[in-house]
């Protein structure tokens, strides 16, 4: 199993590139001429996602937590609502 440093060395440039892509996308949104995104809940989720990335975690579960953040909630009563 590679060491954390080995994995980091291999993936640093890829992570850097993807983070710059995100930054550039956010800049592009800010520069766009029409309107704002202040009412779009997805924009706030992007900020939450960035918080998840930078938070400490002992479970190596950032990918799973981001997936959950961008998921519709599951309702255990769905069968009653569908009448099934």
């Amino acid at each position, binding site marked *: 199993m*590679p060491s954390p440093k080995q994995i980091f060395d291999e993936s640093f440039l890829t992570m850097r590139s993807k983070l710059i892509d995100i930054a550039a996308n956010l800049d592009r949104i800010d520069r766009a001429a029409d309107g704002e995104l202040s009412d779009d809940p997805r924009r706030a989720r992007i900020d939450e996602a960035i918080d998840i990335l930078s938070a400490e975690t002992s479970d190596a579960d950032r990918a799973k937590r981001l997936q959950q953040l961008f*998921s*519709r*909630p599951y309702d255990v009563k769905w069968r009653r609502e569908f009448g099934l």
Partner: protein
Amino acid sequence: MDYIDPHIHMVSRITDDYETLARMGCVAISEPAFWAGFDRGTVDGFRDYFRQLVDVEPKRAAQYGIQHFCWLCINAKEAENVSLSREVIAMIPEFLDRPGVLGIGEIGLNKNTRNEAIIFLEHLQLAINYDQPILIHTPHLEDKYQGTRMILDMLEDDSRIDRSKVLVDHVEEHTIGEVLDRGFWAGMTLYPITKCTPARAADMIEKFGPERLMTNSAGDWGPSKPTAVPDLIFELRRRGHDESLIRKVVYENPIEFFSNSRNFNFKAREEGKTAV
């Protein structure tokens, strides 16, 4: 290394792709019935599509030494049309004894609607009636977690369902644990943007182990890479994993799961014999 792609839509790929797959080590594929990019209008449209899966694609694949198997259903997206779905479900038994037909799939949910759930349940009943394995599509993106939980609920509601004969496909980080913990097979799909990458699939293999886990390209008419399984083989080798672990995920596990079907007449390459 010989490998099997357990979920790829070759009906939407050109013949050159079969040659490329063969050169990359693919010895067999399994092709579930899927959405063609438009909603079909009649049951005869589906009958013709099934004929293409059962008769035409195996011949195209055989030109390059690849064994072709398929699954039949009306997919989750078109399942919103309940009356057409019921006609298709009634027609499927015409094909279930044909060589290479492995079972019912890829059934599932798309937007997690009531009609989709009704037709999913009717497909389950068909599979039980004819003792067929089941291949399941879980929804994309924000619908995946909710839809996967609903699918698992429906599977678990019916004690007649043999979990060793059910593959829940397109799992990702937030659904793989739910699927494996309940005793089903899980498939990871290496597909750009909407699904998984080889690196993330390798992470999940490392976290959960290779038991009841498969990987596929789901290559189709959209931007996709039919050679994605070799990409995963490469990634696992690069990380130093044993050939035995890699072979289990990309070759032995598909064979074990597909052997649930009486129509899985796969022939392994013989040692020392030159094939294509």
